[in-house]
């Protein structure tokens, strides 16, 4: 089966560069599934998991603050942070989640509220992806 080279790049360095049969991710507008030979496309991604399939195996990567660039032979995901499921520090994500929940309950200024929600979102996403680690 044909494959598409997929790379995930963050400011702290590349996270992944491998060939996959299918890339699924959640864009702002909804789910996207990319197969080899897709037309060139750019789309912003939600804080979500990216699922990469090859030979019946699925790799999970959590991304936040990123977007997707597709060319027929290449998929690039640029994200402000990204981790493979196995690299996620579950304890840290758990702590971040609790911190964010606590801040949400405190109900301070509006800006803090939004930040806390985003932080909570990221933590939940990380935990979710980590649960898929093999």
């Amino acid at each position, binding site marked *: 089966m044909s494959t598409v080279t997929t790379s995930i*790049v*963050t*400011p*702290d*360095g*590349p996270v992944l560069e491998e060939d996959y049969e299918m890339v699924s991710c959640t*864009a*702002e*507008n909804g789910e*996207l599934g990319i197969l080899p030979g897709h*037309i*060139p*496309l*750019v*789309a*912003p991604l939600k804080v979500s998991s990216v699922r990469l399939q090859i030979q019946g195996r699925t790799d999970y990567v959590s991304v936040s*603050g990123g*977007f997707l*660039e597709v*060319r027929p032979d290449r998929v*690039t995901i*640029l994200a*402000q*942070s990204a981790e493979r499921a196995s690299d996620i520090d579950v304890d840290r994500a758990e702590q971040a989640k609790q911190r964010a929940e606590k801040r949400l309950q405190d109900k301070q200024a509006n800006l803090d509220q939004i930040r806390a929600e985003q932080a909570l979102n990221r933590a939940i996403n990380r935990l979710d992806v980590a649960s898929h680690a093999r």
Partner: protein
Amino acid sequence: MASLRDIQSKINSTKKTKQITKAMQMVSASKLTRAEQNAKAFVPYSEKMQEVVVQIAASGDATHPMLQTRAVKKTGYLVITADRGLAGGYNNNVIREVYRTIQHQHTDADEYTVIAAGRFGRDFFKKNNLPIAKEIIGLPDQPDFSDIKQIASEAVEMFLEEEIDELVLFYNHFNSAISQEVTSQKLLPLTDLSSEKGRSVQSMYEFEPDAEEILKVLLPQYAESLIYGALLDAKASEHAARMTAMRSATDNANERIDDLTLTYNRARQAAITQEISEIVSGAAAQQS
């Protein structure tokens, strides 16, 4: 002439200073290596980012406030310095350059504001009563993107909310381990995008949902990544500058130790000569 014991203690203390500067030099050298690696790891991200941004900007119809030059009523200066000194002219060079630019360009304190990254810059601007909009200190030697994310996005937000009408970056650019130069870079508005590179690219993108929406997400991220890039560059310069400063301090200590040792030996010789001549003259006095 100082006594033998005085000279000896000066030699000893200089030797101890030398050990410290030597250690700091080696620490900075290894930090520099790490900083260079960080900068290298960042390159693929920034290149890709730029490529996509240029292509979208070049595709024409989409506009975004960050791409448009507007009348400048207030300028923001983002100044990157170190938290600590002992780095030669590293901090002073940047600060002097910023100060000169401000004196030159502005007559009133309402016309500009400073965003200070690093304790040295912050303290200087505070002491001279220049307006500081935001500050961040205590950045680690090997910063992650998450360390700078907040201040970067706040700076970009200030531009979007028209608190400032342009954003200029001042930092030490890393040329090589022995040469760093102060660089000023106009970050916002992003004006130099649509020029060269975008035209030659063959593939045109499909946008999901549309180009304008994507620019809205992409451009702030792009600007943040540029700030992060500048920070990595500045950190590499900082370590290089500190390494050079400590190396010359070590060299100076060596020189001083040599000088002092020479003086010590001369003094010792003089003392011996004097003692002998005293003995000889004493013996001569007894014989006669």
